[in-house]
């Protein structure tokens, strides 16, 4: 395992962020390794600080972070909330899913409201692809995309990358299988962009109705059986499958899905002996993943959650310095 740089925050200063300053983190598409690596390094630091409970609570003191969630997500929201609080920010959660939007307030009205509140950091989740990008054009705050439609989920990809790096030390030469509902997955897209940029071989595995034909253009290989897709991989990354997709339009039933695309020990045995099992959560046990696999020694699902907080701290830290996003 590669030892992470132990420098403190100030050592990162401006020198590693020489490139164009960006105010927002809207996606990882097109992000260069020279930008990704410093985020992972900083997050590695925050992992240690989190464990020793000595996070710099003065860093974002007086800054306001709003978690603006147009779609409910307890995990991601909590992760950002902890990240903000551990850096000393004033954190407010706004779940808009059922309130203002139904009253006809537009996204841009919401933006105007947030500007009036002098928000510094805005974490946005929205069911529509591109919604955070639209908000970013109109708000004074730095926007972090916490998942938009089927477009991107950049902090998920960063935390997945950090988890992988902690186990393998490097990215080059690794083969990663991303399995399940790739079509509707922002997690898959962000991971594809980030992991291919870092030099991994990425495979996508799933039924043809859940894998877009054009995904090959993103530099991945397409596999329609788990047996084909999992052979010899270093990492098996499972995606959550929405139950409503398994009512006959894209997949005939949950039991058929599990039979052919669920991850069980037998299929996992096709991967390399100590291959990692990852899942962005929340899991559908018995649909895309067998409980014995989810709870096995190869599973790093809980570590992903821990890395999530650290990566989000790193992102908030960098953006609050007016530093680099994407």
């Amino acid at each position: 395992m590669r030892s992470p740089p132990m420098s403190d925050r100030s050592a990162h200063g401006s020198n590693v962020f020489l490139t164009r300053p960006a105010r927002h983190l809207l996606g990882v598409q097109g992000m260069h390794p020279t930008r990704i690596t410093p985020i992972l390094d900083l997050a590695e630091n925050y992992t240690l600080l989190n464990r020793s409970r000595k996070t710099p609570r003065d860093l974002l003191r007086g800054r306001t972070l709003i978690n603006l969630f147009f779609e409910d997500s307890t995990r991601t929201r909590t992760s950002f909330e902890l990240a903000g609080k551990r850096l000393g920010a004033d954190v407010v959660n706004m779940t808009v899913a059922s309130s203002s939007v139904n009253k006809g307030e537009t996204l841009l009205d919401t933006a105007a409201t947030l500007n009036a509140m002098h928000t510094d950091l805005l974490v946005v989740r929205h069911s529509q692809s591109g919604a955070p990008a639209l908000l970013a054009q109109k708000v004074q705050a730095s926007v972090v995309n916490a998942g938009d439609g089927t477009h991107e989920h950049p902090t998920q990809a960063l935390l997945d990358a950090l988890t992988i790096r902690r186990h393998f030390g490097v990215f080059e030469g690794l083969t990663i299988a991303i399995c399940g509902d790739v079509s509707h997955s922002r997690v898959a897209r962000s991971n594809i962009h980030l992991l291919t940029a870092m030099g991994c071989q990425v495979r996508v595995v799933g039924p043809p109705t859940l894998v877009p034909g054009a995904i090959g253009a993103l530099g991945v290989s397409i596999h329609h059986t788990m047996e084909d897709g999992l052979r010899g991989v270093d990492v098996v990354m499972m995606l959550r499958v929405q139950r409503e997709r398994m009512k006959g339009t894209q997949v005939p039933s949950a039991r058929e899905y599990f039979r052919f695309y669920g991850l069980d020990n037998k299929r996992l045995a096709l991967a390399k002996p100590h291959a990692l099992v990852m899942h962005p959560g929340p899991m559908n046990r018995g649909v895309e993943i067998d409980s014995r696999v989810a709870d096995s020694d190869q599973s790093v699902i809980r570590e992903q959650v821990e890395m999530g907080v650290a990566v989000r701290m790193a992102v908030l830290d960098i953006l609050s310095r007016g530093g680099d996003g994407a």
Partner: protein
Amino acid sequence: MKPVLFENVRLIDPASGLDRAGRLLVRDGVIAGTDLPGAEGAPDGAEIIDGQNQLVLCPGLVDMRVTIGEPGFEYRETVASAARAAVSGGITTIAVLPNTSPTIDNPALARLLRARGEETGMIDILPYGALTRECAGKEMAEIGLLAEAGAIAFTDGPHAIADSRTMRQMLTYAKGFGALIVQHPEDPSLARGGCATDGELATRLGLPGIPAAAEAILIARDIRLARMTGGRLHFGHVSTAEGLDLIRAARADGVNVTCDTAPPYFDLNETVIGDFRTYAKLSPPLRAEADRRAVCAALADGTIDAIASDHMPCDADDKRQPFAVASAGGTGLSTLLAVTLAQVHAGNLGMSDAIGLLTHRPARLLRSDAGTLATGQAADLCLFNPDSGWIVRAGELPGKAQNTPFDGRALEGRVVGTWKNGQRVFWAQAA
């Protein structure tokens, strides 16, 4: 009314094959002639417009696919604002789609729209009649009565007739009146929920896609129905290679089918939606580059009968939305000529052919006598400088709606003046 004499202009009248330097005289609102001997002086008191051998004079353009906000969506565009935009683009006749609120499914409304056009004194409005009641795709509208009231063709606007049986009946019944049916060529079930053409870009952006084949699938069905029924069928804004191939083959086979396209489909490709640019969200969605090239080729080989602006006004609130939620459509009246001329400057179309696609060819499809410079015709005229450069700027276009997909596009070709029935209705200050 003073006579107007155009001198030292390049006269282009594709209907008669006229394309030469010359003079044109307008008297009492009609074209008095184009064959005046060079020596003959101007009539007494005539206004003289000197083209200085740089300007082209052609018939006022006939735009066969326009959405206006009236009635029902006046916040987007009114007849008056659409007229201002049209004449700034040299357009003097517009055919307007019936999917307004209320829909143009009754004869009184068709008459009203014609009258609203006349009131402007700038443009003629040729109303489309709804093909089905409320453009809902189910019950037949009163095609005969609407035609009597001046509806020039029948369509449900941006909605395709999904049901094959209904489409068959429509083609069969309309045939009795010799009426033209205009279809939006997109299979509705394949298009449902989609907002971009399926492919790499839509996949990257995480936008729900519509396969380009949704066009060919509907075109193939309707061509077969047209062959079965003998009805007159026209496809609006055709945008894919495969769709155009089907139309080309059907015509070679003698099927009574025609089509138009719109400037975005030969001037832009899907990449302009870039990072969720909703002004470039159109219906049908912008296509891959190979399809754009196929549209250019079909313009050049004559498969496409007309170029229409496909003007669809939206206001800022319709467009400042996440991409999938934003309204589809772009303005096109004021840019129709200049974007078409880009095909001329690129060497893909001859000048006279390009003007034909914008004048007498759509007019002939709609059985209108507009779009020619024939002596005795109403003097609807467009005077333009084919080489004058300008940049399209959303927010600075004439008319109300500003949602142009061509924002920032540099173009060559600018309308200098527009005449309706011999009256000047537009004059550019510095063209």
